[in-house]
């Protein structure tokens, strides 16, 4: 039962591995970025679940509440999300430019077009 009790880790690991798999196995550049997003999201989930304190409430000062969840991981992950968004945006814009320059976003086709210098 203990194994299932840590279900958040199972989710994190599942997401992480699927994301990682997509990044590696997919030849489509956009799909790779989607995979990367899933990969990062797993880390976000990991941080957020880490900050949870059993029985604690949202970390906003309120009357009659003693136990709060740890807000720090949430703050951290907010930053990480922003970084993730920036990465995604940059990655996608690169894909757009690649598509304009090569006319394709399939990795194997890009490889063939490796022009010699």
């Amino acid at each position, binding site marked *: 039962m203990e194994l299932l009790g840590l279900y958040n880790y199972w989710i994190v690991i599942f997401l992480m591995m699927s994301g990682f798999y997509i*990044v590696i196995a997919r030849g489509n550049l956009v799909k790779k970025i989607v995979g990367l997003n899933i990969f990062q999201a797993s880390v976000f989930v990991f941080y957020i679940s880490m900050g949870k304190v059993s029985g604690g409430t949202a970390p906003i000062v309120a009357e009659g509440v003693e136990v709060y969840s740890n807000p720090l991981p949430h703050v951290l992950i907010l930053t990480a999300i922003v970084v993730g968004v920036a990465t995604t945006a940059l990655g996608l814009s*690169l894909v757009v430019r690649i598509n304009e320059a090569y006319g394709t976003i399939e990795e194997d086709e890009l490889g063939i077009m490796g022009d010699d210098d």
Partner: protein
Amino acid sequence: MLAAHFPALQVVLPLLMAPVCVLLRGARLAWLAALAVSWVAFAIAGLLLAEVLIGGPLSYAVGGWAPPWGIEIRLDAVNAFVALIVAAIGAIVMLYAPKSVEREIGNDRAYLFYTAYLLCLAGLLGVTITGDAFNLFVFLEISSLSSYILISLGRDRRALYAAYQYLILGTIGATLYLIGVGLLYQATGTLNLADLAQRLPALEDVRGVRVAFAFLTVGLSLKLALFPLHLWLPNAYTYAPSVVTAFLAATATKVAVYALLRFLFTVFGAEFSFTVLPMGPPLAVLAVLAMFTASIVAIFQENVKRMLAYSSIAQIGYMVLGISLVTVEGLTASILHVFNHALMKGALFLAMGCVFYRISSVHIDDFAGLAKRMPWTAAAFVGGGLSLIGVPLTAGFISKWYLVLAALERNMWPVAALIVISSLLAVIYVWRVVEQAYFRPPPADRDVREEAPLSLLIPTWILVAANVYFGVDAGLTTSAAGQAAQTLLGSAP
């Protein structure tokens, strides 16, 4: 009064100047702003290093929140030294930038280049001086994101694909790092590096800590392009604009090496990293593999920039090898090589930029007769190349000297032999270019003198001169690196 805030200002000024560059729009104005701020950062870095070497570590609480709660900027001999390298290269490359950027990027987009450049500089400096594990991640991503942009500015369409590949691998590396930090936070409840270092020894056997160690090492190794995680590097360096290649090659991987050093030695402690978990042998093996495979691949490259990129991977092998020895000498060698390699690769890639400026190619066949057409550029390449080989009286010799010495002191004979043999491979690939430049006649239609403009030559030669200076008078660098190594191993006075 301002002097007390130097640790923060060093990062903040470039960071703030970046949006100013966006507002300025004009290529000239943006350049002036970037130039000014990069030199200020350089000056600050110099002052800080002097202060740290004399007065011991400095701590600066950002936002007035005392560590370990707030973000701390913490400078000791190690990162003050690395910061100085980064700032120095950043400043010198900025001198070089305007002409090269005009040629390779175009003046209409130049201000964006300067913005990204300053962000990258700020990010790298931030990684170096921060004392907070998560803050390090943020700065790492600032520098990485801006370097993806910088690389994609290359003229060749392959620059885009190279930037994309780097983005994917870089992000994976950073995310792995983030997981590691998360696990550490879970185990210790702190993000402050010094605080972590205090709490971790008691938690040696916690599985989470070990997993964190694995994630952190792999993540950072990706960033520093340790063999076999180097796949992003050759393309990125080859197709990026010359200025960018020079800057990144001289700084980005060095900063990642620093981060690895920091985690292996300060945070986890040499005891944990190398005794409890035997990291030494695997690191040494990978380092040696990097030295050889990358050098051999470099020999067969037709594109000189790509050749130098592979050489960078090999050189990173030297740094990691020094780390894997876990002695003061080994670390001194590593840190020295971080510094010296920045100088030599900076000089070489700037020389590449000069070549590209005139010839619009860095293919080895187009180097024929370069010595006649661009004597100063060719001579600069020779200077940097000799340093790369490790010829005496150049900076490269000093770091090789210490590295071999460190290997000998641990009685690691085969390793010492491998180091010298691999540096002989450098002779081959450097000499291919030198021979082409000096002993082949230039193509008949280009047999004229067409030296690169002075604004490109002067910064290149500053770095070449630095290579020679720090090869002849190594007292300054060796003592700083030695002190840094002692700090890392915790035997500092």
